[in-house]
């Protein structure tokens, strides 16, 4: 993204899905229904998603020295 960046940036479908998940599962319950996902449920979604992605990944990114997930 070095030049000509326009507001309507395009990202590959799968990664856009993760961005979407960050939002539709955004923390902080504003509305409570008879069924409401808890923070724990949301965490589980990410855990199972990571497990699923890891198990289906064909090419894993090589680990980078000295860098750890900041999570």
């Amino acid at each position, binding site marked *: *993204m*070095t*030049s*000509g*960046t*326009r*507001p*309507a*940036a395009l*990202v*590959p479908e*799968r*990664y*856009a*899905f*993760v*961005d*979407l*998940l*960050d*939002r*539709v*599962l*955004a*923390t*902080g*319950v*504003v*509305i*409570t*229904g*008879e*069924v*409401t*996902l808890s923070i724990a*449920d949301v965490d*589980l*979604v*990410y855990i*199972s*998603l*990571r497990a*699923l*992605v*890891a198990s289906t*990944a064909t090419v*894993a*990114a090589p680990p*980078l*020295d*000295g*860098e750890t*997930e*900041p*999570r």
Partner: protein
Amino acid sequence: MADDVGLWLHAVTREFDPASVAGLTGVGGGLLRVVAAAGLTAVVSPVDLNEFGAEPLRRNLEDLAWLERVARAHHGVVDAAARLGPVVPARLGTVYLDDTRVRAMLTERRADFVTVLQRIAGRTEWGVKAYTVPGLPATAEPSQAPAAGSGRSGAGTAYLRRRRAALSAGEQRQQAALDSAEEVHAVLGGCAEAARRHPPQDRSLSGEPGLMVLNGAYLVDSARAERFGETVAALADRFPAIRLQLTGPWPPYSFTTIDEEEEASR
């Protein structure tokens, strides 16, 4: 209403013309409709509780294909509604048993909805993610780890030294990226009506070779969206330690929750 049918909440708006959603379907394939109370309108769709009830829902969340289909369907409705006016999107998986419960919720939370709808009117959300830029490795990885029990052998010490040097180069690179991300977030926050950071995405999910050091969301006046995009481009040039990625416009998902501090101070 049948016992096994619930109402999936997509979004809450002020006034909403039911005709504008006529013929559209929600997450479970059911036709969208509206439930109104207290000057607010809930956009809902019928769902089968055998699929979307509490227990089946939690089970289904582990099914990536199901989750993706539901998340995209939910987003499709929220996005369509957001084009017609300010909406408060519901978190994925908010289900009611019947219209009465929806009306009670609208009435009870009216003040919160009005506050949020005012905050987001005429504004959209933009996402800006920043990643470290993987450089050349500082030192080559040793071809093999030192044998166990090698004690103070020169090979082991040299390995540790190389390892430390590599770590420190990596750490420096990461620190520079983190510092850049802080500045980028501060600058973008200054161009936005509100800003927040989502937890960084795991590398396995982001699909990026670099580490995510910023997963920012910015609430921007629609009239200033273009300038916001230009600012992101300028920041990308100014901070070579990170790579920026812009997404949007999104319905204001990240700015429709009631902050915990706000909640606590009431």
